């Protein structure tokens, strides 16, 4: 069975194998032009009406989901994947509790931005604010950034001394802690959560014409813009002293330390940056949804986040973005399959792992690292 699949995969490789090389060989301005065209296409996506591509839309099928809403979720997940990629792909730290940061971001806009949240009620009572007052959405953004970065440091400070699997287990616990604390704290809205979370136009109301409940297109464009800015930022980090330090830590932490790399500091930065990106995506998600509840931030979502990075190609931003897009999009597009949807999804994941363990668009370096490890381990898969 796997032999046949491998044969299919090999012939595919003959067709698509050289794309990356050819792309990198292009002159710089042509690559910029290509990228700009791609970005323009992304902004155009909600109107997608090109004959032959229409079937990509999720509302192409009967009872399909609103296309722009799906695109928005995809963009949010892409942002999550880019953030998690900093931790897993660049710094090489397996984080299985990433949903924790997503939740912290979502809850910080909920707790401070919503007029219905216990925290805002407390502030109102304390400082004599009028009823209906809440922290403005624009102020919630830096607030969420700071809070998620702090939570990243709080998680990282004691745990980054651990390596490999031990770190993964602790982070898994962290994700659960956030959810359970939110579930059991009155000040965090407990089990019923918090509603009335504001968006760019303030608290949800029928008068919000741009960032309203019905039309998801502006939300998608907002999320897409954030994604592009973050791609640019992470790219800068990757090609700097910081990126090199992460790479050195991933390859040989002890040797890096002797060469003057402050491993703990850079790992903590990776955690904080990853957390901030997760927080921003959580904030966007909560703002669009208008309410948060603890149930939405379970460990399953964490595993999905890691799956996006692994399926897409850990360490490569284009790869993880594709992985996140597919994992968010495919289940929506194939709603027709209904009951077997999750099964098909699982099978697809297994197939990817069998044929392309390094991910769909792997980082060249990560792919080689994986290959080395596979060659070192004397496994016999017959």
């Amino acid at each position, binding site marked *: 069975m796997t032999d046949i699949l491998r044969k299919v995969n090999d012939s595919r490789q003959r067709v698509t194998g050289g794309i990356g090389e050819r792309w990198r060989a292009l002159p710089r301005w042509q690559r910029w032009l290509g990228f700009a065209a791609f970005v323009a296409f992304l902004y155009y996506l909600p109107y997608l009406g090109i004959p032959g591509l229409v079937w990509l839309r999720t509302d192409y099928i009967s009872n399909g989901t609103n296309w722009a809403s799906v695109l928005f979720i995809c963009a949010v997940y892409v942002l999550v994947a880019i953030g998690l990629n900093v931790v897993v792909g660049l710094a090489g730290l397996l984080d299985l509790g990433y949903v924790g940061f997503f939740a912290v971001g979502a809850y910080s806009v909920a707790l401070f931005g919503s007029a219905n949240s216990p925290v805002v009620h407390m502030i109102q009572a304390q400082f004599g604010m009028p009823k209906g007052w809440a922290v403005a959405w624009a102020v919630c953004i830096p607030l969420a950034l700071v809070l998620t970065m702090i939570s990243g440091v709080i998680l990282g400070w004691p745990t980054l001394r651990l390596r490999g699997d031990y770190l993964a287990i602790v982070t898994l616990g962290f994700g659960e802690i956030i959810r359970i604390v939110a579930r059991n704290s009155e000040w965090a809205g407990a089990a019923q959560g918090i509603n009335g979370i504001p968006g760019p136009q303030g608290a949800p109301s029928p008068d919000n014409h741009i960032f309203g409940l019905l039309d998801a297109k502006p939300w998608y464009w907002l999320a897409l813009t954030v994604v592009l800015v973050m791609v640019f930022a992470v790219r800068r980090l990757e090609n700097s*002293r910081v990126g090199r330090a992460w790479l050195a830590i991933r390859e040989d932490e002890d*040797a890096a*330390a*002797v060469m003057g790399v402050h*491993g703990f500091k850079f790992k903590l930065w990776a955690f904080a940056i990853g957390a901030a990106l997760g927080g921003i995506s959580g904030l966007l998600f909560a703002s669009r949804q208008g309410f948060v509840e603890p149930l939405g931030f379970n460990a399953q979502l964490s595993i999905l986040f890691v799956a996006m990075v692994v399926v897409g190609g850990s360490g490569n931003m284009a790869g993880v973005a594709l992985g996140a897009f597919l994992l968010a999009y495919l289940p929506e597009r194939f709603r027709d399959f209904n009951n077997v949807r999750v099964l098909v999804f699982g099978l697809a994941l297994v197939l990817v792992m069998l044929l392309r363990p390094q991910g769909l668009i792997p980082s060249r370096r990560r792919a080689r690292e994986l290959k080395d490890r596979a060659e070192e381990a004397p496994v016999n898969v017959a």
Partner: protein
Amino acid sequence: MLPKQMSSPEGESPREVLLEVDQVTLRFGGVVALDDVSFTLRKGEILGLIGPNGAGKTTCFNAMTGVYRPSSGQVRFAGTQVSGRKPHQINRMGIGRTFQNIRLFPEMTALENVLVGTDARHKTSVVGALFRLYRVKAKPEELPVVDAANGAVRSWQQVRRAFARVLGISRHTLEERAGEHKALELLRFVGIADRANELARNLPYGYQRRLEIARALATEPQLLCLDEPAAGFNPAEKADLLQLIRRIRDNGYTVLLIEHDMRLVMGVTDRIVVLEFGKKIAEGTPAEVRENPKVIAAYLGVPADAA
């Protein structure tokens, strides 16, 4: 050329003590890996650390560079206590080292490996790399060059040059450029610049050994510790390495050398410390050590009539 280190003028003696290993003992459970070892290293000298296998030479390096913490005793570098500090701090103080079993970053190119070393002296961190706000006034030779034949590209380069003249250049950019320049120079110095852009893991063995030296030098150490740099070399390669070590010393570095090959050690070192079973058994000039009966016994076994 390799950056010259500050060194005291020739002939002024005794020269300043750079490294002091003071009664260092290191135990692993019941095993005593280092037993009350003391020696000093003066600025500008090449000290050989020799001994049979398992004598504790590499352990001594590890105790000096912060990989292990001595059970008792002290290591002082330029008068400052070393033991108890983290490896990266010790590197920052000025001790660079190579590894006996090569430990390069295999998936990075030779150049990138050395760049990690140069980064030890750089300051750009996350904020600096993200926003590039620390601007430094650029010297004329640091401004972007205008060299394109294409008119449009040329005007673009001129705009960039004008901006750089007014706003300066970010510390990130300057450090990246200076690092690359220095890294290439170091690769040239150790003689492997022809394969600068090849992955470290694909380099031939001799190149990897030299790359380790270049990477350690990139951190701008005052003291360079070489852990069996000639292991696995043939005589011709060993002769080359000997030259390289001399050139490193001539540039003002102090060198601590672990080596098995007696001829190499005798030929290049100023003084030698001999370890056996974790204890120092001899110390002196190569000629003195060569004549020392304890050393001869340790290396060749005890003659029957002495037993």
